């Protein structure tokens, strides 16, 4: 069990000594997840809102599909996106395999269903009473839609927090699409997988702690945001 202790000590050593390999992995992790989260929030919030707010044919069926996609295994996403991005694949010309944007594309597939499903749930939960109140106040349709979006902001924030957690910690997509190339696409999670396979368990624990610290920082800033809005 010594390696757990080692891990704590090494984690601080890595951060305090500004270990370049660790900082490169932190940067790769943040770039990939930042990109993925930006894209999936931009796409996911409007889609989730539409799915929760409006009634239309096949709504239930679409909801079930989105909920099912919450269970997509990351290794499977990695394989499917690899098939698209490989040189011989349909998107091979774009040269996205083994790049950070390539990883981000896979992570968008992972986080998009989370954003859509949780936004839709928040909108559905807020909808009924609010809708009636706003109508009785004489609001027009556009005002009702805008106010509903505003009222569910905390629900959307919760969706963002959940999706960020998944994206920051996944390893299957980063390994398959990124290729774990040192100084380029090695993220913290793929570095943990590598250190573990090398038998450097202490180093693996240290990197895990570094990732937790990043998650803590992200969540503290989001909690700050929640208080202010």
């Amino acid at each position, binding site marked *: 069990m010594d390696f757990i202790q080692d891990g704590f000590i090494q984690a601080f050593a890595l951060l305090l000594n500004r270990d370049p390999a660790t900082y490169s992995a932190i940067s790769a992790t943040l770039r990939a997840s*930042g990109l993925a989260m930006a894209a999936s929030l931009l796409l996911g919030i409007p889609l989730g809102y539409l799915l929760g707010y409006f009634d239309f044919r096949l709504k239930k069926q679409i909801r079930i599909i989105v909920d099912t996609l919450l269970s997509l295994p990351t290794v499977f996403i990695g394989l499917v996106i690899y098939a698209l991005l490989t040189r011989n694949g349909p998107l091979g010309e774009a040269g996205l395999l083994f790049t950070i944007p390539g990883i981000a594309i896979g992570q968008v597939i992972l986080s998009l269903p989370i954003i859509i499903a949780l936004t839709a749930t928040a909108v559905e939960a807020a909808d009924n009473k609010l809708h009636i109140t706003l109508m009785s106040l004489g609001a027009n349709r556009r005002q009702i839609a805008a106010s509903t979006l505003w009222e569910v902001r905390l629900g959307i924030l919760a969706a963002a927090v959940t999706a960020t957690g998944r994206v920051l910690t996944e390893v299957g997509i980063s390994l398959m699409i990124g290729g774990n190339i040192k100084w380029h696409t090695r993220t913290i999670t793929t570095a943990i997988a590598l250190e573990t396979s090398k038998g450097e368990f202490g180093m693996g624990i240290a990197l895990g702690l570094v990732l937790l610290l990043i998650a803590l920082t992200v969540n503290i800033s989001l909690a700050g945001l929640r208080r202010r809005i």
Partner: protein
Amino acid sequence: MEKKEVFRKIEFILVFSITALSGAIFFAAQDSKAAEEGATLLMATTTSTDNTGLLEYLMPAFTEKTGIDIKWISTGTGKALKLGENCDVDVLLVHAPQAEIDFVDKGFGIDRREIMYNDFVLIGPPEDPAHIKGKKVSEALQAIGSSSNVFVSRGDESGTHKMERTLWKLADMQIPEQETWYRQSGQGMLPTINVAGELQGYTLTDHGTYIKYESAAEGKPSLVILVEGDAVLLNQYSVIPVNPKHCSNVKHEKAQTLSNWMSGEEAQRLIGEFKLLGKQLFTPNAAR
């Protein structure tokens, strides 16, 4: 009150716009990087060359000599060959001679060149319940089979797994897939050794990984080397540039430069001098 509400909304919208904007900037930055990466040679290799630190020791000398930047992806031999077949890498450094020859025969690679070898060893508990110590590999495997002692296999189509299956065949035995004593870990070499250690079973490993395992165990490894030195246990590594006729996008000239350099005097000397925990790991054997 009304003002505050408006202010909050603006703030909320701002946060989202900033997120979106930074996303766009990341994209732009990455695009320019991707263009720059076009000049880099991409190699697929096996975990053994990377985990032992050989490549980080060797490749800076290559870049210094030729000015060619190189990146590598270390993975199982099966996946490395697949990445070559799909034109995702320019060159391979792998160790599964028969699969490599097939790869070249199918037109996926050209000019396969042998570079160096290390060796495999059979390891097991020091008590050696199947009495394989000092035997030839074939006799040792037959002894494990008839004693029904646990044997842990990689089971992952890696070079080591391919070697193991060849050894069962050389011992005139069916691959014991169905036997309860034959366990497939589906993991890398070091995790597999750890599984074998927990189960007090035998396994086949490359020598380098065993040296790392032994040193991590600090003098009390639960598994020891029982069979080594048999000629069939030699593990040949080769460099294969991906065939430019199969993949028009590959940087064939650079791949060829790497192949020439690896079989040349400087790299061969460096490989021979490389030590892991004080022990030589790879023996250079490129044809001069």
